[in-house]
């Protein structure tokens, strides 16, 4: 019977099977995307320049298998266009399908030899394919038809004759059962219940579900109906039954919810064992199955039938919310997510053990989560743990309720944990767990619930102790919220690896590096390279209505990570005995070389924050600040001496002597001497101004009292970043902190400037003129909002506008002399601005990941990226 559609799973390895000339290539081209087809002829052509060179077959198939493997690894449906009539030819392909957990499908194009021969005859390059070849192919094909199922093909489509082949007009791609990517939640994920009905009800009620008893009129009625809070659904992570007191009631409740569409459920190994028993298979009655069976005794047969159908219909795992959430009873590594194979199902049910047995006679489980790198959050159960802990974006929600622990739910996407304690110990675990504290809690109030903070925990911290080199080297592509993705070139990563390894502080401190900042476009005004007008014009053109102008301090840019105490740092960063904080430079180096000074500085800053009531106000015990630490000479003393002071010294020694001889020459009336003298005098004066410029930013640092810290961004505290707050908020918040210790902290003078108001713009410009005339470095102009967009386009987070005197220490003493400034105006800020945006988006991304308790490698990748981008060649004077 001919059919006009071919049904295949959406992720499949499809082998076309047919003799030479059967029309496989035509069939494939007609029904699949060209990129989905991997053809042996094409591979032969690629390796031998001749699609019919049979001597190249070995190399051609090696290439074919390589291509198939790459596609399957990436989860793409693939069609193999080769004769595939020999079992030994199919075997490696089936093995690949198994390796990548993809379903193998056979499509047999069974056409008479005459048709194949006629087709071959039409193709000059196939002239060599004689009748004996086609006959041999067909013979092998016939034989194969009997063995395909045994070889592992789940679906075999046998198209008999040309007509059936031609009749197929389209391919229907069936969604895999586990693919629920279009369901976005919100969800409440519930760990192993094991017949703890009482606790399950309590947990559901705590989560806002309403339970109604219902009359049982029909054998199919379950006697309970659950109404979830608006929009929410529950997901059960399996092991509903065994050990506990009320497995049938748990089943009733869950089956009712699944039937009503208010819950999803994946099977656990206990559930499947029960199913096998109900199916009449012989199973060993242990590990709590006996209790379940006894409880089921009292149930009507019809109910048992319902249970059997329910369990039989469960899908091993689900991929939800666009691939962002995966649920499986025993967890699932990334390579198995959304795939279908026996191995996937087995892993989802049982996990993997290392083959070792622990001291309690239980198998030692392979901790797949330690190596987990996937994008999806994986929620699972199966292994009872004292606390649900995050590890690499995975979480085990089996908190051993039946063993007297708790029944835990994870609210998704909120990532909040909600738990109810067990009313009693229903079963003694073979492997004892320390539940003393929990028992005490339970005594106080058996119905009390615990809301845990998104956790920070020992397992993740330990896992983060060592980062993997493959996460930072090579070409990296980092997805960020603000820019779609930031590419880090390999050579930049190479440079950053050295800086990071040799000079940077411990990566657990290194949560943020500030982005580079572009200057304004070059001013056209005489004797100026930079002027606020260009900064205002930039933002006005981008539709920004208000900007904030902040005085630019000339010191060293630092990031301060500070805890309320050492315990806070240990809890949140996993750094034990490492002090209460760290102050590091924009390249990740420790600012302080003197340990005692560092300790004193951090303690004084902590005390200031405590005095200001900061910890209470922000509900946190740690903070990250972006700041300028003054004076410049505190860190740059050597640079000042060897570079800046040296230049002034050389100029001061050389130029007056040149002036003296030029004056003599001018007195002799030599033509040109006068002009040269004037120029030399101008250079001497420029050198003097230059010396004044660098001296302004230097003062001797003898003790802590000589330091001034000017914070200008409050970056993050527990659970929050502050990129959603405007710069006026940051300025005011930090000003209030500065009041607590004016000796150490300096509030940054700033003004908010509505760009539509010429008077305000004029006043701000005058402010800059006055600041720079008094020797200030200049100012930074920021859009009022921390993250400013024009449509979808990210705007510069800040533009610096430096004063003409300050710029002498950047461009050299003589930069304003005639002939020089004209040339220096030919600068291009484009590359710098591009870099500023990429680094800004990486910085924001890194901190957002940190605040969301993501694994350190995800934060480090962003920080490393900023450091790598800093090795891009841009004009360092910008």
């Amino acid at each position, binding site marked *: 019977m001919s059919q006009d559609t071919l049904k295949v799973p959406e992720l499949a390895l499809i082998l076309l099977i047919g003799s030479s000339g059967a029309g496989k290539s035509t069939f494939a081209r007609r029904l699949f995307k060209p990129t989905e087809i991997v053809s042996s002829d094409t591979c032969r052509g690629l390796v031998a320049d001749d699609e019919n060179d049979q001597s190249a077959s070995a190399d051609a198939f090696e290439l074919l298998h390589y291509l198939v493997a790459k596609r399957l690894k990436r989860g793409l449906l693939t069609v193999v266009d080769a004769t595939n009539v020999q079992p030994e030819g199919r075997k490696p392909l089936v093995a690949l399908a198994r390796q990548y957990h993809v379903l193998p499908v056979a499509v047999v194009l069974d056409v008479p030899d005459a048709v194949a021969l006629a087709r071959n005859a039409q193709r000059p390059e196939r002239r060599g394919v004689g009748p004996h070849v086609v006959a041999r192919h067909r013979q092998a094909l016939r034989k194969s038809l009997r063995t395909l199922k045994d070889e592992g093909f789940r679906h075999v489509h046998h198209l008999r004759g040309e007509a059936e082949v031609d009749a197929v007009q389209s391919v229907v791609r069936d969604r895999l059962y586990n693919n629920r990517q279009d369901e976005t939640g919100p969800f409440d994920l519930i760990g192993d219940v094991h017949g703890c009905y009482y606790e399950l009800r309590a947990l559901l009620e705590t989560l806002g579900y309403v339970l109604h008893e219902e009359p049982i009129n029909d054998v199919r009625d379950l006697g309970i109906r659950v109404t979830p809070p608006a929009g929410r659904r529950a997901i059960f992570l399996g092991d509903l039954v065994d050990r506990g007191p009320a497995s049938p009631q748990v089943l009733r409740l869950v089956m009712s919810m699944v039937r009503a569409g208010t819950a999803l459920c994946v099977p656990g190994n206990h559930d499947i064992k029960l199913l096998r028993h109900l199916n009449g298979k012989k199973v060993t009655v242990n590990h709590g199955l006996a209790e379940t069976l006894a409880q089921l005794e009292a149930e009507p047969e019809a109910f048992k039938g319902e249970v059997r159908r329910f369990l039989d219909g469960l899908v091993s795992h689900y991929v939800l919310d666009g691939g962002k959430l995966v649920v499986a009873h025993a967890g699932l590594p990334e390579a198995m997510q959304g795939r279908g194979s026996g191995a996937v199902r087995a892993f989802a049910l049982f996990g993997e053990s290392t083959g070792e047995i622990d001291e309690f006679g239980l198998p030692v489980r392979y901790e797949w989560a330690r190596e987990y790198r996937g994008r999806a959050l994986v929620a699972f159960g199966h292994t009872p743990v004292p606390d649900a802990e995050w590890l690499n974006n995975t979480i085990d929600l089996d908190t051993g309720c039946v063993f007297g622990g708790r029944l835990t739910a994870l609210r998704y996407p909120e990532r909040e944990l909600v738990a109810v304690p067990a009313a009693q110990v229903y079963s003694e675990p073979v492997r004892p767990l320390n539940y003393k504290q929990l028992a005490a809690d339970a005594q106080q109030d058996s119905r009390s619930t615990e809301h845990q903070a998104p956790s920070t925990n020992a397992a993740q911290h330990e896992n983060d102790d060592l980062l993997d080199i493959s996460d930072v080297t090579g070409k990296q592509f980092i997805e960020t919220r603000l820019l779609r993705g930031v590419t880090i070139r390999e050579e930049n990563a190479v440079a950053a690896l050295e800086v990071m390894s040799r000079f940077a502080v411990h990566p657990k401190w290194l949560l943020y590096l500030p982005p580079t900042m572009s200057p304004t476009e070059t001013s056209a005004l005489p004797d100026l390279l930079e002027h606020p007008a260009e900064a205002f014009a930039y933002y006005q053109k981008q539709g920004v209505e208000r900007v904030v102008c902040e005085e630019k301090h000339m010191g060293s840019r630092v990031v301060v990570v500070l805890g309320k105490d050492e315990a806070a740092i240990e809890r949140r960063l996993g750094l034990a005995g490492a002090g209460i904080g760290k102050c590091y430079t924009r390249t990740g180096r420790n600012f302080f070389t003197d340990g005692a000074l560092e300790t004193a500085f951090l303690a004084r800053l902590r005390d200031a924050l405590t005095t200001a009531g900061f910890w209470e106000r922000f509900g946190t015990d740690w903070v990250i600040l972006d700041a300028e630490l003054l004076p410049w000479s505190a860190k740059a003393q050597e640079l000042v001496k060897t570079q800046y002071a*040296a230049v*002034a*010294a050389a100029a001061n020694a050389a130029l007056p002597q040149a002036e003296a001889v030029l004056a003599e020459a001018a007195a002799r009336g030599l033509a040109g001497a006068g002009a040269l003298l004037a120029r030399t005098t101008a250079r001497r004066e420029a050198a003097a101004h230059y010396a004044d410029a660098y001296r302004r930013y230097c003062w001797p640092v003898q003790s802590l009292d000589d330091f001034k810290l000017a914070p200008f961004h409050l970056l993050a505290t527990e659970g929050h970043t502050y990129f959603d707050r405007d710069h006026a908020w940051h300025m005011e918040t930090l000003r209030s902190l500065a009041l607590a210790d004016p000796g150490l902290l300096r509030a940054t003078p700033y003004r908010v400037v509505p760009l539509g108001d010429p008077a305000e713009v004029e006043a701000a410009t005058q402010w800059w003129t006055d600041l720079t005339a008094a020797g200030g470095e200049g100012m930074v102009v920021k859009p009022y909002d921390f993250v400013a967009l024009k449509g979808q386009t990210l705007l510069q987070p800040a533009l610096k506008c430096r004063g003409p005197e300050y710029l002498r220490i950047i461009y050299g003493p003589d930069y304003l002399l005639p002939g020089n400034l004209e040339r220096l105006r030919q600068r291009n800020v484009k590359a710098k601005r591009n870099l500023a945006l990429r680094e800004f988006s990486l910085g924001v991304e890194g901190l957002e990941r940190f605040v969301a308790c993501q694994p350190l490698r995800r934060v480090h990748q962003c920080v490393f990226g900023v450091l790598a981008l800093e090795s891009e060649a841009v004009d360092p004077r910008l």
Partner: protein
Amino acid sequence: MLLTITTTYQPATDLGYLLHKNPARLQSVEVAGGQAHVFYPEATAERCTAALLLDLDPVGLVRGRGPGNEGFALEQYVNDRPYVASSFLSGALSKAFGTAMNGTCKDRPDLPAQALPLAVKVAVVSAPGPDWPRRLFEPLGYEVEVETTPLDPTVPAWGPSRYYTLHLRHAGLRLQDVLTHLYVLLPVLDNDKHYYIGENEAEKLLHRGGDWLPQHPERGFITRRYLRYLAAYVNPTLARLLEGTEEELPEPVAPDAPETPAAAAPAAAPGPPAEPKLSLHDQRLQQVAQEIYDLGPKRVLDLGCGEGKLLRLLLRLPKIEYILGMDVSHQALSRAAQRLHLVEMPPRQRARLNLIQGSLLYRDERLAGFDAAALVEVIEHLDESRLGALEAVVFGQARPGHVFVTTPNADYNQLYETLNAGEFRHDDHRFEWTRAEFAAWATAVAERHGYQVRLVGMGEEVEGVGAPSQLAVFGMAK
């Protein structure tokens, strides 16, 4: 940058003939990096002064040198080049006074041979110390005077700068000689060159200094600095300079000598020097190579291989089948590849060696499956707080059969006269451990990771302080 040459030879204005520059005019010539102006602030029969004012263009020095150009080596935009006598001045001298330097004078052919009383002023020279101008110019018969300049007059505590106004006087010398001396010695004082040093540079030195340099007591210093310590040029040049003289070669630049000053050398070699001594570093490497060889490993890691000195020794041991050199510095790896001639290596030899960039602070699966790993003078370049990561990477993850760790012995530092107490042998050392500290670390590491450890001194032992370096040999416990 200003250079003046004054003579009281009668008539002094003959200086104009000699220099081929008319005392009545100010003349400007384009030179590398800017302009040179030649003029005479005084020109009487009694006394005549010629001035050369070098006006470098600071913007031009940086700009217009696109990729592919030889480029200005200094990445700085704020620098002393416009004010200091440097190779730019040598260039300007040969451009503006080339005729005089070659000893020709068309109008007065007798003059160049004439010894003149001369006074020279250079404002300013950059020198490693105030005695260096003397050491370079006094042996040539000059009376030398230097004026120092404070680094910053407003910060007296910073002391003097490295800039000096140089005064030279000579009772009677050919102008040609003075110009030649300045041409060679001013860049030697400055110790920087604005152009690429090629073979040509050695020829220039032999041409300009051939007459006087062989007798100069500082010829070694002058040659090395003039040729920027490039061993390939320095040694043959010295040999040619001293050809036919009976003098011994001054100590040559070692072929692998670093361009930066090496770690402090011991004040006095303990014990009488018996044989030609290997440097401490080479000794260490040979000892480690020997220790590795004795264990007969097949796959060896050199972690922190630097420029590949240990790799070279290991490659000579045929029983080692595969060597992986790793360093965090890409630059060091390129140099290692060059020195080991990786590109031209025959295929079988090439297959024995691989070089990778990596860091000892990141887990790296490429490091698994080795019989031995060497960390020669590596750990002291890491902050002590990061050693835990190194330990986890090497002993926890890579787990080679044997690990060889060397580090300086701080007990020994008291024998280094130039080291003050608490100072380290190298700027980049983050710590230097005593024997007890090293032993404590090594023992704890071994215990935590299932290794046994043996500690060995490296180099000659001195009573009470041990050997200069120390080695820990870790072997995985059976």
